[in-house]
């Protein structure tokens, strides 16, 4: 059985990161209807917000959805509550990453060829995603 929790560090972090408040969502699910990558998601976008509203932090930690999100912003463009779900997803990703221990890899792990060929933006984003 799932119980809801009143306090959640993930949710507080996410609110701070994204500047969005999941309480504003009334669950019309238009985000899920608009999202082009729902086929690969285990939780639909509106369910992610519902989990945030209910404080289901542990379940969210296990979900693949925040990592599937392509940040196309269609959800944000369609949302009748003016919530930016793409920012929320990014907020969740950042909050999760900051809680992980240690770095997965650093610049020293990359070969000179890789460093030369990879675009800088991909490197920065890779470090952000996979490092503490």
């Amino acid at each position, binding site marked *: 059985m799932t119980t809801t929790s009143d306090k959640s560090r993930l949710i507080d972090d996410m609110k701070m990161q994204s500047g969005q408040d999941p309480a504003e969502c009334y669950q*019309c*699910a238009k985000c899920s*209807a608009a999202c082009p990558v729902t*086929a690969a998601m285990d939780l639909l976008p509106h369910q992610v917000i519902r989990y945030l509203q209910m404080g289901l932090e542990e379940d969210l930690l296990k979900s693949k959805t925040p990592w599937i999100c392509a940040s196309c912003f269609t959800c944000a463009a*369609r*949302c009748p509550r003016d919530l930016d779900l793409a920012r929320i997803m990014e907020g969740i990703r950042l909050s999760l990453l900051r809680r992980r221990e240690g770095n997965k890899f650093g610049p020293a792990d990359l070969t000179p060829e890789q460093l030369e060929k990879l675009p800088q933006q991909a490197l920065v984003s890779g470090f952000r995603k996979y490092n503490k």
Partner: protein
Amino acid sequence: MSRTGVFICHCGTNIAGTVDIDKTIEASRGFPGVVHADEYRYLCSETGQDIIKQAIEEHDLDRVVVGTCSPRMHEATFRKAVAEAGLNPYLLEVANIREHCSWVHKNIEEATPKAIALLRAAAAKAALNEALEAPKLEVEKRALIIGGGIAGIQAALDIAEAGFEVDIVEREPSIGGRMAQLEKTFPTLDCSACILTPKMVEVAQHPNVHLLTYSEVEEVKGFVGQFDVKIKQKARYVDAVKCTGCGICWEKCPSKTPSEFEMGLTKRKSIYVPFPQAVPMVPVIDRNACLYFRKGRCQICAEECPPGAIDFEQQDEIIERRYGAIIVATGFDQMDPSIYGEYGYGQHPDILTGLEFERLFNASGPTGGKVVRLSDGKPPKKVVFIQCIGSRDKARGMNYCSKICCMYTAKQAILLKEKVPDAKSYVFYIDVRTAGKGYEEFQRRAAEEYDVAYLRGQVGKIFPEDDHLVVHGVDSLSGKIIDIKADMVVLAAASIARADAPEVGRLVGINSDSYHFFNEAHPKLKPVETHTAGIFIAGACQAPKDIPDTVAQAGSAAVKVVGLLSKDMLQGEACTAEVNQAECSGCLYCEAVCPYSAINPVEIEERYHDGVLKRTVAEVNPALCQGCGSCAVVCRSGTINLKGFSNEQILAEVDAICLQR
């Protein structure tokens, strides 16, 4: 020196919770001119009023200050109480220590000194208060209703039945409004025309009702009891007396233009009545479409008209009339959903709004009552209804719920099943809201007996594929993404204020909310009154509303009007402007800004050395003045005073607040 009594109300804990009453009383005793101070838990109660009355007698008070709620609330109550004790009611002064003090402060340390300051100011002003008399005003026993929809019709009938004359001004060629466009009405499914047309006929034939169709209000001047209104009756180019409504003119007319009544789904002639049950059954010529007016050729209607009623020379007419009261009942519009690109409205003939779909059921509608796709004329087998298009949408639409869509969607789904028995309906909804007598039962019937699939979720996009429309949405309850190959899509577009509502509001002098719906004077206790005396509102111009609510509100507004018109005299405004003509320079700026035409130039004679000097100065007509104070503000020589709010009194208040700091 005046003998002022100060009375402080606890208002339960509303005031006493944040204001230290004892300290306030103590401080009040020290104000100049105050000879008595007292308190009571509820000063507005009869006991509370008696305390004031007794104190006036015992302490020989000649001024009264009450520290209570806003004067909007209870000034009248306390004025009456002091009048009963023999004081002129205008010698009372209200210090608003609730809305302006206890409600906006949290702690007693801040609120108490502020309450004392407000009371000190009120006592200083009260010392300068003078006894005033309110003039008596006559009431013109005739009402004006702007808008001839069901709200206007109902209000007109109720006022007329009470024995008063009433005029309906309707912009369109016929009365009937939005209700005339509907096929059936929820939750009983009675035919809209069958219940509306008898009322339209009744109102047209009632001896006390006068219809001014194809007319618009141009100007409203004056005030409660005496509104002077200019109405433009647009030229119909048809003599209403000669016309028999035979219909030969619009049969023969060769030019066509999109029909407003049919939401542009079909065309009408250039000479037309908007719908077959129109009242009056007198056509109008649309100047912008008529071949004669556009190109100077074709007078077929005039040639064919048996009684010779066509008159191309007719001119717009201005009617000037005086009314005692006005009801604004101008109705609503439907939002254009084409701003939502994902729904493709306007890009495909089978994507309709709720009101457009409604017309397909009507026997005189664009399809002659056959529910078919406008693209290929085939009956639709799968219809998707989408709720909350532009409603409950703070990003791109309106923040409010449009109230009627849940019910009319259930109605249309039921009607569809009856017309096309093998049709299947799907309704994408966020919440189903069916508060109302018989409403919930009706919506459940749609879901249970008419096989309407309710899907809790929204639609992300609609796109054409082969000969159908793919509706890509989600059912949030099952968490499933859903694609429906639909034949038709109906969008429940938001009900919004009329595009020209702000203009109408300015014209009659009433205010509106941020959505341009007209504001009632109090959301609970004055639902049909406005902040302008003598002007009332009814129907969907106030907020989205269904027919039962509209009719109830129209009846309510009518009662208020009847109550007003039943009086022979109204109490006018006592706090009117006053010109000190000796100081007046005669610039007459005041005359220009007065919204009530209450200021006129007069010539006075003054002794000047040995001779007599004639000069022009301003004079206020106290019967017309409403005490708005605009003249006092623009007066260059500062010589106009508003009685009860004189410059001296206001400055005394300011001094009383500042000097004690």
